[in-house]
């Protein structure tokens, strides 16, 4: 293109040059014509001046006499101008007639100069001076005549020259116009052609650039020639191709990363060694597009054995095959602990792939766990897919590291599993012995509780045999009866505690329930001079077994009253707390020490010696528990205790 532009410019300049050159030559010729024309005119002027000067000099010759001052310079100048003019005229081309006339004129001028000089310089008597003067005047007159005669001839020549010069000027004008027009025409054609030649490839390139920016990587500009634009288009196409290639590379790399991520994720989720190996080999095959993979791991006995699952290799062929650790370590050391390309006839490992994967490149990749050799991978890649690259090995390293971690995880998991199992066993044993101990204690408590009335009954039964007084017999029998009843009550309560009853649920307003209980115990309240404070809030109804809950409240209120033998305040509060309805029963009694409060929900634990059975609070606790609630106790010695019962507001039955 550059060459073309230079060529065009050269042509334009050439055209200009030719036109200009012709014009300059013509101008030079014309100007020389004009110059001679001017000279002719000047000559004519000179001639006229000469005539005037001659006339002046002639007049001086008559008037001034023989003394000349500064006017002599004028005369000299005039005569010399005349001389030069005549010389110039002779120098030009003239016809012989003019040349002859001029030659004659020159001679006369010379003569005139002599005569004039002689006249001017001579100092003599008047006659001699007059003669000299006359001689000069005569020559001057002849010169005047000659000069006047030449006017006509000069005019004719002047006219001819003028016409020729005008013609030449016209020709030059036409030449210049033609040259200008031709150059403009050529310039226009060149501009149009260049514009078209430049615009076509530029438009193509713009289109290509738009295509690429729209995502059509690899788009090829359809323009080819040998100019710079052709080169640009080729470069553009190359750029487009390399962009596409780069993009595809990135995509494939991202795909590999995705598979890598997926694989490593599943590697870490797997909890069995076999699963881990499977995930790894599947992942590696997916990423590297391999024909076959064999995993070898160091077993507990130190030998390296192939571990299934395999890919592309017959599992049976590898069953019961093992490598001596020494052999493997030697290869490991020889390879510099790096991945190594293997030949098919490898002396140690050859047997793993002699039967399969013909026409494959083989790579041995080491698996390390905590910097210790844990095994290796034998990887088979079809020769058509090319050899293993650095990138492949880098990806393998990532996989290998993840594999090592996953294997460790599996081991850890299995360890943990074992530990858990053992813990559970121990726990179960513990529970069993605790159960036995509880039953033992319960049996002892029950025996003790029942032993007391039985002892009394036995004692009075013995007394009866000796008693004669009927009154006494009656009294003793009454005691025996009373004690028997007491024993029966203990047994019944024990039954009650141990019996699992089905809850008969209905919606209950706890305030009513509490009020019912308070009515029931009102004699005791009066007797103990206890003041009751009800602090009820607006609470919803709850779904409970009313009789059982009533028993809970009865137990708790009775305990409270009993804790205040000298009187006090019984405060009953209700409140909604989150998902629970809370009922608080607080007293201002003696309070419960910490060591006691920890045990108050145990069966047969009592602080009331012979007054209670030690089953009231355990039963209450169990009832609330069966309702999905709980009982909490807060107490301070000498200040009082607060029992808080939480009942669930919603109950999914």
């Amino acid at each position, binding site marked *: 293109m550059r060459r073309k532009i230079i060529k065009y410019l050269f042509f334009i300049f050439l055209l200009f040059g030719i036109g200009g050159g012709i014009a300059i030559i013509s101008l030079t010729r014309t100007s020389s014509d004009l110059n001679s024309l001017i000279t002719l005119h000047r000559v004519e002027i000179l001639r006229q001046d000469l005539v005037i000067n001659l006339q002046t000099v002639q007049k001086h010759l008559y008037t001034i006499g023989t003394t000349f001052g*500064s006017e*002599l310079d004028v005369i000299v100048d005039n005569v010399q101008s005349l001389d030069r003019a005549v010389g110039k005229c002779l120098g030009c081309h003239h016809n012989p007639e003019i040349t002859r006339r001029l030659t004659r004129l020159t001679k006369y001028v010379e003569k005139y100069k002599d005569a004039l000089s002689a006249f001017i310089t001579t100092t003599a008597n008047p006659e001699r001076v007059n003669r000299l003067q006359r001689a000069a005047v005569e020559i001057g007159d002849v010169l005047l005549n000659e000069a006047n005669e030449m006017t006509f001839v000069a005019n004719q020549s002047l006219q001819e020259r003028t016409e020729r010069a005008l013609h030449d000027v016209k020709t030059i004008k036409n030449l210049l116009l033609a040259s200008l027009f031709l150059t403009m025409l050529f310039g226009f054609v060149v501009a149009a052609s260049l514009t078209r030649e430049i615009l076509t490839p530029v438009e193509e390139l713009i289109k290509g650039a738009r295509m690429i920016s729209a995502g059509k990587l690899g788009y090829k500009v359809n323009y080819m020639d040998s100019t710079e634009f052709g080169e640009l288009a080729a470069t553009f196409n190359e750029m487009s191709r390399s962009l596409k290639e780069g993009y595809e590379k990135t995509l494939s790399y991202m795909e590999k990363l995705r598979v890598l991520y997926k694989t490593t994720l599943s590697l870490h989720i797997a909890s069995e060694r076999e699963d881990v190996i499977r995930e790894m080999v599947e992942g590696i095959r997916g990423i590297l597009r391999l024909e076959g993979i064999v995993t070898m791991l160091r077993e507990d006995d130190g030998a390296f054995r192939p571990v299934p699952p395999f890919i592309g290799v017959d599992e049976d062929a590898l069953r019961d095959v093992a490598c001596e650790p020494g052999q493997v370590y030697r290869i490991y050391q020889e390879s510099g602990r790096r991945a190594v390309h293997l030949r098919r006839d490898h002396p140690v490992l050859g047997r793993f792939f002699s039967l399969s994967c013909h026409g494959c490149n083989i790579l041995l990749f080491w698996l390390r766990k905590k910097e210790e050799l844990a095994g290796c991978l034998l990887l088979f890649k079809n020769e058509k897919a090319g050899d293993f690259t650095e990138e492949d090995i880098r990806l393998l390293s990532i996989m290998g590291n993840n594999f090592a971690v996953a294997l460790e995880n599996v081991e850890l998991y299995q360890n943990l599993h074992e530990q858990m199992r053992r813990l559970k066993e121990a726990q179960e044993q513990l529970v069993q012995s605790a159960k036995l101990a509880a039953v033992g204690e319960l049996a002892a408590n029950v025996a003790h509780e029942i032993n007391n009335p039985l002892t009394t009954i036995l004692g009075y039964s013995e007394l009866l045999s000796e008693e004669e007084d009927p009154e006494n017999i009656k009294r003793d029998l009454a005691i025996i009866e009373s004690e028997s009843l007491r024993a029966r009550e203990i047994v019944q309560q024990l039954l009650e505690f141990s019996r699992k009853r089905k809850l008969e649920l209905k919606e209950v307003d706890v305030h009513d329930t509490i009020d019912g209980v308070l009515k029931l115990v009102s004699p005791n309240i009066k007797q103990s001079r206890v003041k009751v404070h009800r602090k009820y809030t607006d609470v919803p109804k709850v779904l409970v077994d009313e009789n059982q809950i009533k028993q809970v409240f009865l137990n708790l209120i009775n305990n409270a009253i009993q804790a205040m033998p000298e009187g006090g305040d019984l405060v009953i509060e209700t409140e909604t707390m989150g998902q629970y309805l809370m009922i608080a029963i607080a007293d201002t009694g003696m309070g419960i020490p910490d060591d006691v409060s920890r045990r108050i929900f145990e069966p047969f634990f009592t602080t009331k010696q012979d007054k209670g059975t030690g089953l009231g609070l355990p039963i209450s606790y169990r009832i609330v528990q069966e309702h999905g609630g709980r009982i909490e106790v807060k107490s301070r010695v000498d200040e009082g205790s607060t029992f808080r019962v939480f009942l669930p507001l919603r109950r999914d039955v």
Partner: protein
Amino acid sequence: MRVLLRCLIPLCIFFFLFSIPSLRGETGKRYLLIGLIPERNIFRQIDRYRPLADYLSGRLGVKVRLTILSRYGDIIDRFSQRGMDGAFFGDLTGALAVELLKVEPVARPVSLDGRSSARGVIIVRRDSGIRKPGDLKGKVFAFVDRATVSGYLFPLYYLRKAGFNSLKEVFSEYYFTGSHDSAVFAVLDGRADAGSLKDTVLNDLIRKDKTIADELMVLAESPPMPEGTFCLRTDLPPEMRRKIRELLLGMKKDHEGMKVLQEMGLSGFTPASRNDFAPVIRIMKEIGIGLKDYDYRTTLKGR
């Protein structure tokens, strides 16, 4: 009023601007004026010196103009009046100029045969029969100018030695041709029987026309007199005088200068001094004329 002002201000500026060159023109002459004496045909004399003037113009960077006088004596009278800066003087005019105009002799031209002087000669036609001073009695004599040694004082000295004290008692008519070559032509053409001039011009003419030597003969010859001495006025800047002197003396070593010298028929210039005019003073002394008292103006009065 405003319109008038508007017209006047540009006019003032216009005149101010155009007055500058004219002022400059008045402050100093921007050319050197060199005077010439009419030793030959005045037109040829001018033509002869023009190449030298052009050469000096080119070298000095100042235009050198020539002016010619119709009488030898005029150069003394008009040197200052015409504003001349220098002139080529003849033998007597040179001596007069040094004495009266206080000019400084700078250089003298050297002819092709190595001479920088000329002898005065008295010529007669061979067929005139004039061979001795006495033969001149009653003849017509053509002098050149009263202000030349060769063209006037020498024949006067010649006649004085022969015992003639007045020109009128010797010649029937005498006149002054004003230039040396005219004197030759006057004798040749028979307008005079004898004439006097300097031999260099005679020899020049003979070189151009050999027949002159056949027709004329030299009756007497003077000692050599300084010829064409170039003098400069002393109030010209010394630098300029030095420059002109060096230019003239160095012309023969300069290619362009050599060309000019050839055109003038010269071989170079030689340094000039006041002493060069000693022969002039001597011959005047012998005639009994003082330089300061000499009436150098050529007229026919008092002949």
